[in-house]
């Protein structure tokens, strides 16, 4: 039995050398490995950029919807924020992070350390880059183009997901101020009428960015709470009565 195994083992060398000489086993050229490595690195780069894009979009979306400022309203604001987060995009980001970690584990400087380090490293870098892009004018200009109908392919995505509509909080810009009501314009270009039961204790003027909490019913928001926020004025289209929808109370 042992002799048989030894013979079989000895045959391995002969068999392989014969196959090489006959051309059955061929060496892959160096260019193949270089191309494979380039594709792999390219794949990781594209995946990373897409991940940063999604994370920055989530940040942009929470800014433009006003969710970004909700924690200023205390626990109730945080509750509303958690319910309003784009969980589908967040889940997609988590899946992409897991894929990125799996791909990164192919590099010795990654797999030689505990996974927890590389995972937190990836999350940290993605969040940092996501915040930088999310706070830059990148998405705002794309959103503006989408609003003007000048963004093909991803335009509808920006219109639907870029400024999601919530019924209980609203990121708006003041367009006109009355006694017990005022009108606002949201990033989608909708003009809304805000009615209050009492006098508003904060002075409002046209062009102020505010985050409103209050139930929306059609084009009317029943005022509950508000905070003035220092938000990008480019989020809101210029209010030009006559060209856009007129506020209902002016009709």
């Amino acid at each position, binding site marked *: 039995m042992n002799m048989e195994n030894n013979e079989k083992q000895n045959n391995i060398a002969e068999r*392989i050398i014969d196959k*090489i000489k006959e051309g059955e086993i061929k060496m892959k050229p160096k260019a*193949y490995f270089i191309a494979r490595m380039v594709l792999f690195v390219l794949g990781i780069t594209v995946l990373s950029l897409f991940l940063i894009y999604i994370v920055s979009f989530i940040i942009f979306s929470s800014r433009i919807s006003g969710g970004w400022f909700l924690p200023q309203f205390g626990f109730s604001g945080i509750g509303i924020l958690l319910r309003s987060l784009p969980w589908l995009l967040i889940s997609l980001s988590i899946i992409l992070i897991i894929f990125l970690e799996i791909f990164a*584990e192919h590099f010795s400087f990654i797999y030689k350390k505990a*996974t*927890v380090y590389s995972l937190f490293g990836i999350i940290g870098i993605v969040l940092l880059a996501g915040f930088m892009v999310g706070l830059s004018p990148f998405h705002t200009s794309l959103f503006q183009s989408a609003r003007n109908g000048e963004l093909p392919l991803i335009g509808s995505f920006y219109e639907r997901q870029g400024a999601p509509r919530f019924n209980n909080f609203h990121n708006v810009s003041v367009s006109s101020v009355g006694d017990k009501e005022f009108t606002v314009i949201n990033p989608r270009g909708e003009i809304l009428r805000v009615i209050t039961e009492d006098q508003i204790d904060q002075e409002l003027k046209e062009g102020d960015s505010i985050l409103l909490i209050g139930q929306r019913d059609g084009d009317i928001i029943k005022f509950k709470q508000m905070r003035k926020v220092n938000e990008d004025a480019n989020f809101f289209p210029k209010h030009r009565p006559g060209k856009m929808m007129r506020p209902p109370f002016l009709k």
Partner: protein
Amino acid sequence: MNDSYLDKKDEEIVLLVQSGQVEPFNILINRYEKKMARYAGRLLSNRDDIQDVVQDIFTKTYVNIKSFDVNRKFSSWLYRIAHNEIVNVFKKNKKNFLPIFDVDIFFPQHAKKNYEEINKDLERKEMQKMISVYFEKLGEKYKEPIALYYLEDLSYKEISEVMQIPVVTVGVRIKRAKEMLKNIFKEQGYEYGK
């Protein structure tokens, strides 16, 4: 076979193979065939699987030899190919080899202090004896690192490269495997170290 190859280092021979010479590859097969058979034999129970795996290891080595960087250690690279081939056999046989998620890889720092390499020759010899008798009693994830360390004489760093797991995880697994073997040894009525 040309005797002038015999004095050459593995990496020098690889360089010759990469340049298109076939004969030097025979030297590499002769140098590592038994080691590969022993390594695969430790982890695979089927004799036919072992023969096929050894042949596949050297076939893959030749096919991919141009991807090998001669500034690195050839044996570590070869063991990495062998590891992949053995994992493929496990997958084919649907044997539960290693878990997809392992806390030892994710966060092994809790055992950081205990992973220094064991260099005592006496301990090494005793462990080798224990492994040869009780190897099958070890859990699947402990078999490979302890075999590579005590039987194939690979360092923790090399085992980390072969298995593509953190160096500290290699240390943790070897330490646990040693403890398991010592316990088995004691259960059999022997005393470790005497």
